[in-house]
């Protein structure tokens, strides 16, 4: 209950500060609309916002799912093979040095204006945190467990599946928690560069037509969506993946 109350109190405080800025600065609504107007727009345009939010949500979920699977498999592959580590890791680090924002136009060129380019963007943004936190955890397995398994006559493959992977699941979980927050960023960037649907598209459209209230309404929906996604992933991680924690 305290958590809920604190959350509501915090939201009310934020809204109060927002309203205060509008009043004190005497800002016109095409610069900064007040919370009242944004709430009204949110209600009036609920169908448009919901339709576009659904598009973004699908992009994010597909990207997140693919990123989790690809990142998870990559981490296991890297942990299993020193050759793969030597060859692939520098490439991964280099790929992180490329600003992902700069890739968005290329992805749109290659994959078109539809779902695929946004999913790819979300995937690229979350792949590294998922891979790297899972990989780090896989490389930190308790050496004594590995010794015991070796004395028991275990193969490397079975040690990986029965000891290293389950022991590293909390690391995978922290990667997924980050991914839940990053994936929407990827999808939105993709939509900004080229789209005809989605919250990012709606925000650009509203901005261009000086409908700042609609832009804020979309932004709030996006933020709430991201928070819900993070909470769901967090719940999943705690119930399923963190069981290795003491």
């Amino acid at each position, binding site marked *: 209950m305290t958590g809920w109350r604190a959350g509501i109190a915090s939201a009310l405080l934020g809204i109060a500060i927002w309203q205060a800025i509008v009043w004190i600065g005497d800002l016109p609504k095409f610069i900064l609309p007040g919370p009242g107007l944004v709430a009204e727009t949110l209600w009036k345009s609920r169908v448009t916002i919901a339709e576009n939010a659904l598009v973004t949500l699908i992009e994010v979920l597909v990207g997140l799912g693919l990123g989790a699977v690809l990142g998870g498999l990559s981490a296991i592959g890297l942990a299993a093979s020193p050759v793969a580590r030597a060859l692939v890791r520098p490439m991964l680090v280099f790929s992180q040095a490329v600003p992902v924002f700069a890739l968005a136009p290329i992805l749109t060129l290659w994959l078109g204006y539809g779902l695929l380019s946004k999913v790819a963007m979300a995937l690229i943004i979350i792949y590294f945190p998922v891979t790297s936190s899972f990989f780090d955890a896989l490389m930190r397995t308790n050496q004594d467990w590995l*010794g015991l398994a*070796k*004395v*028991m006559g275990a193969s490397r493959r*079975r040690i990986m599946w*029965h000891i290293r992977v389950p*022991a590293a699941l909390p690391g995978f979980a922290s990667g997924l928690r980050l991914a839940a927050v990053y994936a929407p960023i990827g999808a939105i960037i993709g939509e900004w560069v080229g789209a005809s649907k989605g919250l990012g598209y709606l925000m650009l459209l509203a901005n261009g037509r000086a409908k700042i209230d609609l832009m804020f309404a979309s932004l709030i929906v996006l933020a709430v969506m991201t928070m819900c996604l993070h909470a769901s992933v967090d719940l999943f991680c705690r119930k399923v993946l963190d*069981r*290795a*924690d003491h």
Partner: protein
Amino acid sequence: MSLAPSLFLRGDAKIGDALIFEGIDLTVTAGQWTCLLGSSGVGKSTVLKLFAGLADHVEMTGAFGAEDGPLEGRVALMAQSDLLLPWLTVAENVSLGAKLRGEAPDQAKIMDVLDRVGLADRSGEKPAALSGGQRQRVALARTLMEDRPVVLLDEPFSALDAKTRARMQELTAEVLEGRTVLLVTHDPGEAARLGHAIKVMTESSLRDVAPPTGDVPRAVDHPDVLKIQASLLAQLREDA
């Protein structure tokens, strides 16, 4: 369980440039408890790791192994930490070896070994629900489940409180009877209770000490046990 072999180790060991021990000549008699006693850092654990096949980083000049052939696959290991996997149940931890070798776990045998360590009613629980002593009993059950003729014990009782330790020593001596056991310890009392043979290890020597009379496990308060314990402690302090 196949017939328990004698073990031997002769020679010098180095890790990188650091000398761990030299001129060691150790025999572990078949079917008996040999206690290897010494201060920290004299290479007791290295001896154990060599026998366990976990000493890839150690440069060994000399020879070690079983008198009757290769040792691989005939050794079970029990360490100071219970090494239970927290995400598995007690029963799953006990049968970990089978799982890691891709064999079907023998359910009846799992229950039998858990029964022998007095934990048959806890088989479905996770290790976190158990006390330190109970967890170490699960580790003992896992060791029994492996059913190997040679058992290497690396200070398995040192993290337990005095009462639990005494009981674990008795239980372990009872259930491992007939196997070749090498116990590495820094506790003179433990060596005096459990050793058919007691060896005090220093960086440059290995000294045999006559064990107390009587069957293993000997009573904690037996005068002979107390006397040997005191003499072992005196020797350890001299060496330091």
